């Protein structure tokens, strides 16, 4: 509670951020407040990675029948995969030879190297060929950013003119103050006052959605940008961490699941946001906002801190569906997630029971059926 009040305080009045900073470290605060404000963002980072559960844990909790069912479901998936892909899965492990015709002038991509006129894999993964390019697509590695990716990250540090974000990459990502639209929606130069007010936009531990802008070739850090209404701070929801190879790059990463009133962002880095639906209006000029605030009564100025119960339940259901799918190691597409959610509703599974082994096995079977249908439709 104390946190929300101090939040409001620093936002509604234009206190430069250094004052609020001093305010935070004064020793004579209540213990609770202190705990909240000095929460170490690095801790959060550890916690984010702690969420992952894997198939090993699941298999231990299964009984005999469930184990057999899961086994057969996975077996079927293997059959579907080998039937659907044109070439048999060209899986390689480290230092396996990749068969190429060297006379064609092969381009060696990521995950390959030369050894005695042979092309050799340096990571475990799947060999992919695009024209002359040969590369190995790795699984279960950390996120490898590409320009234009939509990512979800957590702010770990506010430094001069920039925020540093944890995005499951080997370095921290950087969001410059100059590469984001200010909340007043104006296109102008960022001044020193803006710099002082940075904490009123994003604070440490905030979850943010942004786009990859490019690499800084000098030190390899990642530059982000958030030049649109759809990017920015994410509130009233939960962030999930899954292995990044489960999220495929698509045209659409923002999903509005209308029937549940939930927004879902499948970040390419494996951070997934599930939150209450927010309407993105057109950019409103600052004057009208100010005047409308003045006209409002005190009650109206209070932010709406209430999320209806149904929305929250839907949100948790979707989140648990994602958890189940990522435990099983299935790719996270909207269709797969929605199918799992619908199944859980139609079979009257409680939200908390979705993480039990029985539902996991059911989800695996549903996914098999979905994929069979998909391949049939293609043929």
């Amino acid at each position, binding site marked *: 509670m104390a946190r929300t009040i101090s939040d409001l305080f620093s936002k509604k009045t234009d206190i430069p951020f250094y004052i609020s900073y001093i305010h935070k470290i004064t020793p004579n605060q209540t213990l609770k407040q202190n705990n909240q404000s000095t929460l170490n963002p690095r801790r959060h980072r550890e916690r984010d990675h*702690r969420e992952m559960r894997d198939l090993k844990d699941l298999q231990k909790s299964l009984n005999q029948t469930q184990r057999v069912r899961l086994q057969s479901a996975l077996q079927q*998936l293997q059959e579907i995969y080998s039937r659907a892909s044109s070439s048999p*899965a060209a899986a390689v492990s480290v230092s396996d030879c990749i068969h190429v015709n060297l006379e064609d002038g092969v381009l060696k991509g990521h995950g390959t190297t030369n050894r005695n006129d042979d092309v050799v894999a340096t990571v475990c993964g799947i060999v992919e060929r695009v024209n002359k390019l040969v590369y190995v697509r790795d699984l279960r590695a*950390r996120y490898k950013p590409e320009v234009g990716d939509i990512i979800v990250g957590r702010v770990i540090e506010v430094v001069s003119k920039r925020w540093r974000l944890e995005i499951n990459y*080997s370095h921290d990502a950087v969001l410059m103050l100059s590469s984001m639209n200010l909340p007043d929606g104006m296109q102008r130069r960022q001044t020193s006052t803006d710099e002082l007010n940075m904490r009123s936009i994003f604070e440490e531990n905030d979850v943010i959605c942004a786009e990859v802008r490019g690499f800084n070739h000098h030190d390899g850090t990642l530059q982000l940008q958030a030049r649109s209404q759809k990017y920015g701070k994410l509130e009233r929801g939960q962030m999930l961490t899954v292995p990044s190879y489960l999220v495929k790059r698509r045209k659409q990463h923002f999903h509005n699941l209308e029937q549940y009133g939930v927004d879902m962002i499948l970040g390419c880095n494996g951070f997934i946001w599930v939150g209450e639906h927010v309407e993105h209006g057109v950019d409103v000029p600052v004057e009208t906002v100010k005047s409308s605030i003045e006209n409002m009564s005190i009650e109206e100025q209070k932010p709406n801190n209430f999320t209806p119960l149904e929305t929250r339940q839907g949100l948790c259901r979707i989140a648990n569906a994602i958890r189940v799918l990522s435990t099983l190691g299935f790719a996270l597409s909207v269709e797969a997630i929605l199918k799992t959610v619908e199944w859980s509703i139609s079979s009257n599974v409680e939200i908390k029971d979705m993480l039990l082994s029985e539902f996991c096995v059911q989800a695996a079977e549903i996914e098999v059926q979905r994929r069979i249908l998909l391949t049939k439709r293609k043929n």
Partner: protein
Amino acid sequence: MEFVNLQGIRLDGRRPKELRQLCAEIGVVSKADGSAAFEMGNTRVIAAVFGPRAVQNRSQKIANRALVRCEYSMAKFSTGDRVRRPKGDRRSMEISLVIRQTMEACIMTQLMPNSQIDICLQVLQADGGTRSACINAATLALADAGIPMCDIVVSCSAGYLNTTPLLDLNYIEDSGGGPDVTVGILAKMNKVTLLQMDNKLPFDTFEKVMQLAIDGCEAISKYIREVLLENTKQLEYRRGL
């Protein structure tokens, strides 16, 4: 003490040129980027790899390659008698260093500048050859973490007792006081990255023992590659098209 009886059987019932049973499992630590458990008979270790991630200590940052760190520790319950070892004792410091150097030889560190890779090794059960088991586990964990490596490092030990070269010594044979050679090789490139020997050996015997250890390494590398390939296939088809 008789380590090999007249029938040519060792104390634990193996032939002189026989490995202990191998068992490898990938993905045992869910919080780590890559992890593996490796068993050689009764020796059992767990490896967890964290990274590549941002360097924690700024002064250790290397501009053109990754920093590799390694931490080896033995669980208190891993040996027969429960010994209280301080965290940074000599033996584990030495083994950490040896493993770090061995792994650094195969990791393509130049591809990951300004980052660090942590390898944490924990011995759950020690029955001789923990250092070999740790290297094998670390290789699996690094491969699981998707860290580019130029080749697979495998390690195996061999000894010379009762005028017989013995492969993959267990604890009793290890403490028998005979010479003991630990070899780490890059499996496909046929290069030696680790060679340690306690005690002395005449040169011609040494060659025999070393060749035996290398043969052992090759058998282990075959097993490790199978495990890795199977794991990759599993991940891929579960993920789907």
